[in-house]
């Protein structure tokens, strides 16, 4: 297994914090192609961690293993002290309420209105809010956070790409998760909308005090939101450190990301 290049220690030290999410020696192959080849990761409470990698490097596979959408070949994934792969369906669903997931293409349910999209995660998990009967205040609060209250009765196809991404973020936030996973949050968006989404991600992190794992290949996004970065190359964490430290690196593979 290749050793990660530790370019610079981030401000968050593993000695003082317990990781809220930890991946150890994760391996996943499709046929003969090894996508993840011993990937390791620690996400600390309140931290914004960016994972960068080329297309097809296995970033989305890693994040899907993380929420139990895909089974890894080997390795362990520990979220808030629980091993994801050892949980039964009910416990996994319960744990998933602590993880918000913003999908690459927003993944809004296109047969439902914005309101129904936001109410959907609440159907099975009202217990988190004391079995409330009226979900309207929670829906409005989440939409207010992303500035889209006026779209509540619209269908997803009536929204622009940026608005869809914001509604998807509101849906990811509605259960007030402790961890948010962003899968390419700015892909397919114009530079101005990308900046709005990045700004929103920072605001959300401050308001909800979440830990964020951001999968991206957008250098601007990584520069603004990251506190620490991991470069995923050949299925392993090739380099790790702050944005500035990685940018100043002389390693050819690291430099290629910032050209």
């Amino acid at each position, binding site marked *: 297994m290749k050793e990660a290049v530790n370019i610079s220690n981030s401000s968050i030290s593993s000695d003082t914090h317990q990781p809220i999410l930890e991946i150890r020696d994760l391996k996943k192959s499709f046929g003969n192609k090894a996508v993840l080849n011993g990937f390791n990761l620690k996400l600390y409470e309140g931290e914004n961690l960016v994972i960068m990698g080329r297309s097809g490097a296995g970033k989305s596979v890693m994040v*899907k293993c993380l929420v139990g959408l895909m089974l890894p070949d080997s390795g362990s994934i520990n979220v808030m002290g629980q091993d994801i792969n050892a949980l039964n369906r009910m416990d996994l669903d319960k744990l998933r309420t602590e993880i918000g*997931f913003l*999908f690459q*293409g927003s*993944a809004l*349910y296109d047969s439902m209105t914005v309101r129904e999209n936001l109410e959907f*995660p609440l159907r099975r998990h009202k217990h988190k809010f004391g079995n409330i009967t009226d979900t309207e205040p929670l829906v409005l609060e989440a939409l207010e956070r992303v500035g889209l209250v006026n779209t509540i009765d619209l269908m997803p196809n009536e929204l622009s790409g940026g608005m869809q991404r914001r509604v998807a973020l509101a849906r990811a936030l509605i259960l007030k998760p402790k961890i948010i996973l962003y899968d390419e949050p700015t892909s397919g968006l114009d530079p101005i909308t990308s900046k709005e989404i990045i700004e929103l991600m920072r605001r959300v992190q401050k308001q909800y005090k979440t830990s964020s794992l951001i999968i991206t290949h957008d250098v601007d996004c990584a520069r603004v939101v990251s506190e620490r970065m991991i470069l995923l190359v050949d299925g392993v964490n090739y380099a790790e450190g702050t944005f500035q430290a990685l940018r100043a690196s002389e390693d050819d593979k690291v430099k290629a990301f910032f050209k």
Partner: protein
Amino acid sequence: MLKPTKIKSFFIEIGELTYFTKRFFKELFHKPFEFNELLKQCYSIGNRSLLLVGVTGFIIGLVITLQTRPTLEEFGAESWMPSMVSISIIREIGPVIIALTFAGRIASGIGAELGSMRVTEQIDAMEVSGTNPFKFLVVTRILASTIMLPILVVLGDAIALYGSYIIENLKGDVSFLLYFNKVFNALEFGDLIPATIKTYFFGFAIGLVGCFKGYYCEKGTVGVGLAANSAVVFSSMLLFIIDFIAVFVTDIFFEI
């Protein structure tokens, strides 16, 4: 000639479909039950097929009567027309033709809907939000299809017999009461019950194949088209196999 890889993939698909069926029965009896979604799907599936089934049934009745009448006239047996038409429609033609049109409408619709949900990660989003997508999307659609097809077949059969009556009334001056009196005299439980039971299996097969093709859709938007298309082809083929088995079993128990 079929290549060995095609034969292999065919058997792999049969295996996967069997596993999918097993999972359906496993999830069916486990809480939580998605009752509201089931009602919504019943309404949607029934409503979407109503006009098509009505028109198809009506035309079946008209065509069978128009095509058969000259032959029966030759033998002076026009009075047998209601009996002959009713038995052929209730036993075989009604259920099979209506199920085929239902498959064309519903299996392709379900295949395309679930397929597009799969490729746009909506199914993954459902899973991550703590809802079992198999239960919410698949179980409800298969159940709705199983419940609605028999109702639609009964309706389609009734419309087909009415279509037949219209031709008889125009050509042979037969009254409504006389026609339907002859229809009900000709029919027995041995005609009605097996024909109704097999429509439940037809509905189940159509829902199952549509969901299976859509749920495991791959290859992006091209895959969605393939899922919709293969759902219709596969479910239509399955209908004829089920029909053969149903007729075979009926022959043993009712001596048709």
